[in-house]
């Protein structure tokens, strides 16, 4: 098993945290993991992305030029990363703010309207775990019980009061993701 994933969007969307939850879940499942962020001056509003690799073998390169899965959360990231999904791979995107939808026919494409769903619920902070839930529905690379441990481990203690809401968001994300092709 080897899953090479990129999560890309705006800073402030929880892109890096989502990757961290997934990486911790992988650790709980005894996988080798790498979490390689874009880092820098980008804060809220700038671009942010993270490459997460989960594997049952030692991971050679922590960076990749093609991905099994891309989770794309803004238009710039769509331009940059849609071409980098492996043929037969998976592209998941939030439709909010996307002006040019994915065009490739040789990959599976899923949409998840997490931005609007979070806005409807008045829970913007659950955006990234909702996306994560959608991803795990499509690509169940880690057991849900390990995701819950990963979630707890990657959150600071002061945020543990939000654990059950995030668990619910993960579950709900799995319900609202839909296959485009």
């Amino acid at each position, binding site marked *: 098993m080897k899953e090479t994933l990129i999560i890309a969007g705006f800073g402030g969307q929880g892109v890096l945290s989502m990757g961290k939850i997934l990486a911790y879940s992988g650790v709980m499942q005894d996988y080798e*993991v790498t979490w390689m962020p874009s*880092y820098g001056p980008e804060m809220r509003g700038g671009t942010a992305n993270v490459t997460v690799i989960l594997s049952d073998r030692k991971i050679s390169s922590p*960076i990749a030029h093609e991905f099994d899965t891309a989770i794309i959360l803004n238009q710039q990231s769509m331009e940059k990363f849609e071409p980098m999904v492996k043929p037969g791979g998976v592209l998941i995107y939030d439709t909010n703010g996307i002006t040019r939808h994915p065009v490739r026919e040789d990959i599976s494409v899923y949409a998840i309207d997490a931005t609007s769903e979070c806005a409807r619920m008045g829970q913007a902070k659950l955006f990234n775990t909702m996306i994560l839930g959608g991803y795990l529905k499509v690509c169940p690379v880690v057991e849900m019980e390990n995701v819950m441990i990963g979630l707890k481990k990657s959150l600071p203690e002061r945020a543990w009061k939000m654990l059950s809401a995030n668990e619910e968001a993960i579950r709900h994300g799995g319900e609202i993701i839909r296959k485009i092709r």
Partner: protein
Amino acid sequence: MAEKEVKLMKGNEVIAHAAIRYGCDGYFGYPITPQSEVMETLMELKPWETTGMVVLQAESEISSINMVYGGASAGKRVMTSSSSPGISLMAEGISYLAGAELPCLIINCQRGGPGLGTIQPSQGDYFQACKGGGHGDYRLIVLAPNSVQEMHDHVALAFDLAFKYRNPAMILADGAIGQMMEKVVLAPQRPRKTDEELRAECGSWAAQGKPATRGRNVVTSLELQSEKMEIINQRLQAKYEAMERDEVRYEAIDCDDADYVIVAFGSSARICSATVEMARAEGLKVGLLRPITLYPFPSKPIAELASRGVKGFLAAELNAGQMVEDVRLAVEGKAPVAHYGRQGGMLFNPDEVLEALKEKLIKK
């Protein structure tokens, strides 16, 4: 599944944990991207409340390195960390530490240069780390970790070697290794050395308070009599020769039957290990030689590969061609040596390195 003691951490964070657990006495630093998490983590862990380790944010890199000089003069295990421009500011102090034969740990989490350059990863400080940086004929022990686990392990290794040779040691990492998270197993907590232990270990040279039983210990790099200074220089060189004889460390992946060998260190070596996998899948016999110590450099294993009939070497580095010079010196003209690099904070991809290998060596 039962919870294990496996942590998920950034390379920079693990440096802090490893230092505390090793029994480090003091950290002196000044923040700079991409290594600020080292001091941030130390401040969060508050080791002064547990092991008694001092953590101090100095007013500048120049102060940091001179605080290291002070602590090391007393035989303490002290360290600093910075990134490229900050290390340049420390260069004078590093030369003085080497001249006064003071053991310490310096971490350079490299970013692109020259000047302020970029905050993204680079390996442009190879020359600075291995060939000088500061003035005078001196060497640092230079370690190049390629994973978060090695960032952890090299802290103990660097301190051990620094004290063995009474010489500053540097961990030459980069922004990619510093910012990346991986699994890591932390070492058990060791106690810091007691004053008695330090006197037993460093009493012959450290400034720990003069007992009536011996003369003064003077820690200095100054000697105005040329005859005496040359003897000091020769002693330093003898020490470096001993390091070159006994402390070379490297990893050879698929080199035994290789027609072509990539030489790469740190984050580049991680990327190039995937290049080797890709090449082998295509039926190309490619190996990777990864220097773990950049000084002392693994010249001998590279020379042996060249003598054995390797058809070409590719030094893949995130710079314009620095380590490649040491590869050429080791190969001594027995085979072509090419360089492939990216700069400015750009990383290369595994396939890009394979293309370069074909272009520069195989097709020729």
